[in-house]
């Protein structure tokens, strides 16, 4: 994408004349916003708070003077991807609000030992920003974070990011057609469109286990790793054997004196075809980008084929389960341990785990798998129901994330003051995972029913980003106040989605983070990535109310 082509895009439209005036306004608005932002950087916090409070009031009264075209909440993969696509579409006046002081979101936070993506890097990256230098087929989180930093530098995104802006409220002014984000320091930012890119796996907390506050040792959550803690010579407990747990355990076993692994439900584990990328391969990808695209296509279609095993219960599901059992049998010789590690749900119902070193690590002399239920945490360790207190120096909680299926991470107020969290009480629902009726000009990344179980989340993400760009362009080009999906279209869409979900493995009876307590699936998309992409490729204007 070149600069010139960026600029050409809007001008070629017949609606350009309509658009130009607001575009000019936007430039002025952008300058004003910059001034405001500069002022906000003033050192005295109390003063900032006061002026921010005043600004908030004025912003709500007359927000039209300041708004940028797009407000993006979150500077992880989603928010940065959105920014890149907006830039490539010629939309430059956007602001990214990031609660942390660095980019990277989930990959910035999840830097525990062994952290890696279970999708091959050539597929877990943006097709519009390929990286020929991936060092391994499945790269670790540090390398993925480097890639994210590289995206920021390559697309010059840093100037758009406002760090340490923790959004607590996002409200829509129906008359002006403006979204206003308010931070926890009462700063406000306004935009004509808003993109919620806060990520589905961004919040975590210690689990609600009796006595957790009594523990006198050290506690670490996998998603907020304590890099200063030295595990050498320590007795360590790991609670949780999901995607994070199985990556952490082999690393801890290498350094700690003893590792006890507390498992509630074993997951299906498939071998990981992991290898170091040879130099000639990197050189080939650099010199001949089409070869990397071919590799990506190969990976894409092989993952697509896995949908048949993972999403629906088919003969291929049995093949996948047999493969996982073979992997277990090959790596674990003891019958009882094998039984403890054998899942009793259909493969795919929970996230499929990928690892070559998890089973061997559990069998090391300094490791032990414990499947007794946890009765409570005590001062010195973990008491399990078989009556024994397992004493440890440190407990690692690999217990996953606080995934919200029925709320929003911050208050989102739409038309007529309706609150999204309240509308989602019975389970989140949206139109094509991206828009919600009553919340115009708002786009979601990883919204309800957008999750893949078999393919790269970033493949799904690209479809969402491009859809959002279409929506944003429509708002800007036609100078719309509202672009709101019709309620009956949203209802029709959800009815169809839930009907399709009922037939999937996710809804086949196991408990997972994909489902609400009542078993409502607000997380996954029941189909191939190709189907999802086709759904998102079409922007049906007749499904929207425009003002």
């Amino acid at each position, binding site marked *: 994408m070149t600069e010139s082509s960026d600029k050409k895009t809007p001008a070629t439209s017949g609606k350009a004349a309509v658009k130009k005036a607001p575009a000019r306004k936007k430039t002025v608005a952008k300058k004003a916003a910059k001034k405001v932002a500069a002022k906000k950087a003033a050192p005295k916090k109390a003063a900032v708070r006061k002026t921010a409070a005043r600004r908030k009031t004025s912003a709500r009264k007359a927000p039209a003077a300041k708004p940028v075209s797009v407000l993006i909440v979150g500077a992880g993969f989603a928010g940065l991807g959105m920014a890149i696509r907006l830039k490539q579409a010629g939309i430059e006046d956007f602001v990214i609000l990031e609660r942390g002081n660095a980019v990277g979101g989930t990959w910035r936070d999840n830097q525990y030992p062994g952290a890696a993506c279970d999708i091959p890097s050539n597929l877990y990256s943006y097709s519009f920003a390929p990286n020929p230098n991936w060092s391994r087929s499945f790269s670790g989180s540090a390398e993925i974070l480097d890639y994210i930093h590289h995206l920021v530098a390559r697309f010059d995104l840093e100037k758009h990011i406002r760090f340490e802006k923790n959004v607590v409220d996002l409200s829509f002014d129906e008359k002006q057609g403006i979204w206003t984000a308010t931070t926890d320091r009462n700063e406000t930012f306004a935009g004509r469109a808003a993109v919620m890119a806060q990520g589905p796996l961004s919040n975590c907390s210690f689990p609600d286990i009796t006595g957790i506050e009594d523990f006198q040792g050290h506690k670490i959550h996998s998603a907020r790793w304590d890099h200063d803690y030295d595990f050498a010579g320590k*007795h360590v407990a790991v609670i949780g054997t999901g995607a994070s747990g199985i990556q952490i355990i082999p690393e801890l076993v290498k350094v700690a004196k*003893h590792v006890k692994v507390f498992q509630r439900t074993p997951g299906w584990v498939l071998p990981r075809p992991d290898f170091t990328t040879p130099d000639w391969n990197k050189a080939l990808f650099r010199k001949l980008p089409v070869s990397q695209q071919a590799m990506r296509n190969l990976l894409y279609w092989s993952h697509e084929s896995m949908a048949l095993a993972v999403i629906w219960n088919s003969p291929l599901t049995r093949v996948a389960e047999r493969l996982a059992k073979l992997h277990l049998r090959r790596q674990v010789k*003891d*019958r*009882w*341990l094998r*039984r403890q590690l054998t899942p*009793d749900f259909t493969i795919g119902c929970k996230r499929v785990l990928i690892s070559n070193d998890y089973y061997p690590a559990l069998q090391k002399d300094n490791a*032990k798998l414990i499947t*007794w*239920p946890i*009765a*409570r945490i005590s001062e*010195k*360790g973990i*008491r*399990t*129901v*078989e*009556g*024994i*207190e*397992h*004493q*440890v120096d440190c407990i690692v909680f690999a217990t996953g994330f606080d995934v919200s299926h029925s709320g929003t991470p911050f208050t989102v107020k739409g038309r007529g003051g309706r609150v999204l969290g309240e509308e989602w009480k019975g389970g989140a629902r949206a139109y094509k995972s991206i828009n919600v009726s009553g919340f115009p000009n708002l786009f979601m990344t990883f919204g309800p029913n957008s999750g893949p179980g078999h393919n790269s989340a970033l493949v799904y993400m690209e479809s969402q980003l491009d859809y959002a760009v279409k929506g944003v362009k429509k708002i800007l080009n036609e100078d719309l106040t509202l672009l709101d999906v019709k309620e009956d279209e949203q209802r029709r869409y959800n009815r169809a989605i839930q009907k399709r979900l009922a037939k999937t493995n996710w809804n086949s009876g196991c*408990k997972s983070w994909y489902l609400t307590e009542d078993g409502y699936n607000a997380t996954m998309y029941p189909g191939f990535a190709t189907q999802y992409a086709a759904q998102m490729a079409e922007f049906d204007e007749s499904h929207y109310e425009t003002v």
Partner: protein
Amino acid sequence: MASIDLDKMLAKIKSTQWALSDIDWDAPGAELITEEQWPKLKEFMADLMWIEHVGARAFAALAKKAPTDTLREIYTYFHAEEQRHANAEMALMRRWGMLDGEEIPEPNVNLRIIIEWLDRFADEMPVYVLGTVVPMLEIALDGALCTFLLDTVKDPVCHQAFEKINDDESRHLGVGFTVMEMQGRSASYINMVQMMARVMDPRLILGIASYMPLLNKMRDNVIAMGLPEEKLYKAMKKFERIGGRTEEGRRNPWFQLIKHHGRWVTNRSNKIYHVPVDGLVKLTGLMPRRALPAVPSWVKELTWQPTATH
């Protein structure tokens, strides 16, 4: 309807957990074991501990097959609780100087055969087979043995431990009988046909062939220890009484089968049953220990130590 609410039961189970460290195993009272009692008690405790442990494995199998999530979780807890009982009984043995260092007491041959059977086939058994046999074993052996123990042993720590164990066991039996009644709710003809199909399963036949001599062997053991035979039979009759208290319970064909079998066991004059089964006990008694396969690794999970770092 005598059934219990399983969800409430699960909540109760979770809220009433105890650990070995709740008991002071070095408190005074160990000296109350008489010299005469000591050798018999040693064997008795070893058997008891192994029965708990075998029960634990049966609950593990039940957890795999449980028809509902609640029941699966309950059985998962029961599996661990039975293990806790075995651990506590080992702690008592250690207190009384009955453990040889770190050694786990040797199970008798009939128990070894049951362990082997459970390890190989228990997970394949339908939930209602084990769901009926386990309450019988618990009520008969556990119930009778525990009562006998508390009648004869004066050590207060033993009483303290068994108060906790018995509280758990009463919940195990409550759930056991409720599950038996659940099975009796469907049409009995279908149950009968399904049961006959199961009975013909060679794996189950092997199980029956191990279960029958175990009962007789245990009977011989408890008599050798001075427990009046009638106490054991009384406990077994309790199974018949509680299991058959409701229409649903009586309609469960597995209950009927186990009940009748119980009657044969308690009727010493039934030569048709006792002569061949006692013969089996003798035969298994002759089996050299070396001929038995190595114990599965779940057996090695037993420990008398309230805390563990490895």
